[in-house]
């Protein structure tokens, strides 16, 4: 007990020294985020984040009980069960999962990995050498990378080997399996984290700082899409890796996740030459990525952080000169009232320039791009473009539209610098009934871009008639979806406080997932059948119009209170005090 107390006292004394203090400060910055406005930021406790990161691995492991349980195998009549062979696709899944989650965390922390302007203003004028700040930040990044790698894989590193090796007669099998699994998934996480980190460092090094700030959002969205795409490979790729000896030029060799599964098989002693080759690649790639991350970080620190005040004082170029022409055109055709014109400009600038909003919208769009590219690959793989569009090909604009509309509706509820909303409170009449119309028009303007991009492609491959029919159907369905998403919406986007947690939130999430399948699977299948017969197509169009009209009526008949402009999303009262004793009797 005495020893513990003295250890705690020693630790306390050490934690109050300058270097550990700087490390703690860097960790705080990375975890809390940088540059973001401090008040409206959705500040989630780091413990909660760690718990959320650990959940996927834990749940995925639990779901595998069914596959590896010896009793269930006996009931199924499975004899000669080879756990290592059976674990191969699951191992791949865990590697991909750990890479996606760790990479996702690095993408999220993209801006705070490097010391920022706030650090500069608070630390640099103090008697602390720059090299100490640099070292402290490096240590903070290493600590957080390790914590994340262990956290993301902790649950699966314990549960998965236990599930796979539980039925085996010897403990050593389980211990060996657990050791290899833990090592590989942690290394895969570190690879993914440092790959994102190296990308940020390289861009910071190569691009002028203002340009780096501008392209950051695009790159982060692209990386998020890439990670999601990698996660989606977990179903098809394990079989392709098994086929590697027969197809040595398979593109699977280029996948980092395949390298790590190869490395895993190498450690287990279950490999062929092709697998061994990509297994070695994992280690080389890990070393390269770490080296690039360290070098670019050091150089970028020298180039950007040390020169931060100069970068701050460089005059910025004009923004928004060309957009004024676009706004004028839109004002003439779409946004007719001052409320709509002002709201549209504000909303578009927020979605495109505010980091949180742009990231969220980009994330949803990236998700759509991943799903759409999967549909395209499965429609075209080995067959070329068919003479008549299949359901897969018809679903592409619907997928993109669904994800984009859902994303925009989601970000409408995220406030942007809530202290600044006084101008809307001050100028707008709360009984104005234009919030819904404004939101609908903004959403449709965004999805119109998808439609305009898709139309020429359909015309090129399948002619005008199909392009126009499909375009009209997609437009009506997207309009219908917009109306559905805006039922009860009565805000100027981004000006209202965060909505309170709604007990039905889980139901909404399930509805969105089911809606996705209805919208992007059922509709294209029906449409593909209808396109073959003009009468069926006309009937389908009529049904769609009917559905749109029903939702439109629902919205226009909604209770008056739902249509008043709100700036604070207060939870609904679950009961009402009637005060019957006063005048009620």
């Amino acid at each position: 007990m005495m020893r513990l107390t003295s250890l705690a006292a020693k630790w306390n004394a050490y934690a109050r020294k300058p270097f550990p203090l700087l490390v703690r400060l860097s960790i705080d910055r990375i975890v809390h985020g940088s540059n973001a406005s401090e008040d409206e930021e959705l500040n989630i406790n780091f413990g909660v984040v760690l718990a959320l990161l650990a959940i996927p691995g834990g749940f995925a492991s639990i779901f595998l009980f069914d596959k590896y349980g010896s009793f269930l195998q006996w009931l199924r009549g499975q004899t000669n069960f080879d756990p290592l062979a059976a674990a191969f696709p699951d191992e791949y899944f865990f590697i991909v999962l750990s890479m996606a989650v760790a990479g996702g965390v690095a993408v999220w922390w993209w801006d705070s990995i490097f010391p920022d302007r706030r650090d500069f203003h608070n630390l640099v004028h103090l008697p602390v050498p720059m090299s100490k700040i640099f070292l402290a930040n490096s240590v903070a990044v290493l600590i957080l990378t390790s914590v994340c790698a262990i956290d993301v894989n902790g649950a699966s590193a314990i549960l998965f080997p236990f599930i796979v090796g539980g039925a085996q007669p010897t403990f050593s099998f389980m211990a060996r399996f657990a050791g290899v699994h833990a090592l590989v998934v942690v290394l895969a996480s570190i690879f993914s984290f440092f790959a994102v980190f190296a990308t940020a460092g390289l861009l910071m090094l190569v691009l002028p700082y203002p340009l780096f700030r501008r392209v950051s959002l695009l790159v982060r969205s692209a990386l998020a899409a890439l990670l999601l795409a990698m996660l989606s490979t977990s179903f098809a790729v394990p079989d392709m890796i098994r086929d590697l000896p027969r197809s040595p030029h398979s593109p699977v060799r280029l996948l980092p996740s395949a390298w790590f599964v190869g490395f895993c098989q190498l450690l287990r002693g279950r490999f062929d030459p092709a697998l061994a080759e990509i297994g070695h690649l994992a280690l080389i790639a890990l070393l390269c990525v770490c080296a690039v991350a360290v070098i670019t970080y050091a150089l970028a620190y020298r180039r950007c952080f040390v020169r931060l005040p100069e970068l701050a004082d460089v005059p910025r170029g004009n923004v928004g000169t060309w957009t004024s022409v676009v706004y004028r055109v839109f004002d003439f055709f779409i946004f007719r009232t001052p409320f709509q014109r002002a709201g549209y400009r504000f909303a578009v600038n927020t979605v495109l320039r505010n980091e949180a909003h742009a990231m969220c919208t980009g994330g949803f769009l990236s998700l759509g791009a991943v799903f759409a590219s999967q549909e395209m690959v499965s429609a075209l793989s080995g067959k070329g473009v068919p003479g008549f569009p299949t359901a897969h090909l018809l679903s592409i604009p619907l997928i993109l539209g669904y994800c984009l509309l859902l994303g925009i509706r989601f970000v409408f509820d995220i406030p942007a610098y809530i202290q600044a909303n006084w101008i809307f409170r001050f100028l707008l009449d709360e009984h104005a009934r234009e919030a819904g119309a404004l939101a609908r028009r903004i959403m449709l303007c965004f999805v119109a871009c998808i439609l305009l991009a898709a139309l020429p492609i359909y015309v090129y491959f399948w002619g005008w008639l199909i392009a126009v029919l499909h375009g009209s159907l997609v437009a009506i369905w997207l309009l219908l979806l917009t109306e559905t998403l805006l039922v009860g919406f009565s805000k100027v986007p981004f000006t209202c406080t965060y909505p309170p947690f709604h007990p039905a939130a889980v139901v909404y999430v399930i509805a969105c997932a089911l809606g996705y399948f209805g919208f992007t699977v059922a509709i294209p299948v029906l449409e593909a059948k209808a396109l073959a017969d003009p009468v069926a197509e006309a009937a389908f169009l009529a049904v769609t119009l009917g559905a749109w009209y029903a939702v439109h009526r629902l919205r226009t008949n909604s209770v008056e209170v739902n249509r008043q402009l709100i700036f604070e999303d207060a939870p609904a009262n679950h009961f009402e005090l009637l005060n019957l004793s006063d005048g009620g009797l």
Partner: protein
Amino acid sequence: MLQAIALTKYYASIPAVESVTFHLTAGQILGCLGPNGSGKSTTVKMITGLLEPSRGRVLYRGEDIRKDLVGFRKNLGYVPEEPNLYPYLSGREYLEMVGILRGIPQPRLGRKIDSLLTLLSLYPSRHSAIASYSKGMRQRVLLIAALLDDPEVLVLDEPLSGLDVSSALILKNLIRALGEQGKAIFYCSHVLEVVERVCSHVLILRKGTVVASGPTGEIQKRIGHSSLEGTFHHLVEDVNPDKVTRDILEVIRAA
């Protein structure tokens, strides 16, 4: 004590500050004045060592500050223009961090922080997150951070910004008292009357160059204006305020 010799800074090829020279002696309070974009902030950043000059040098006790920046900053207290603090730390935590980084030993640091927090009316909210502080409270935290280690040189960039009347009065008196104690103070501000009352010397910048420097009274006498406002206007302003006022009114009234 602190000497700027022909300080020049170019951003790309655009000159922000050109050949700024001054000498700040112990006990002197030098007010730095200038309109927006005159190079005040760039000058402050260069004399605090935050920004490397394109040309020229800053000397502290005859030595170039860039030779031993850490040593120079041990003797420097700095209040930046923007109270850009860590919002998730409490006021006390922030000051403790500054004190530790300045190498102040622990028992003395704690006592000093608590006393200064009490004197500047921040003690009741010392454990609240800085995110909940008003601008004036943040400014007071910055002042305490600057004064914590009893520095020889103080660089104050708009230190009165956001302060209430009594805090501003305390600070003005404090600056004068610190000057009397032999501290060298570089005071940057837009508020001419405060500079006139507090500073013994002024440095007036216009478009990155020094247009006047010296004892406040002497400059006023030389220009022939009885107030610093008149002198400042005479030296740096290109516009006629009365005419601009009339023009604004016309634009507002226009259909």
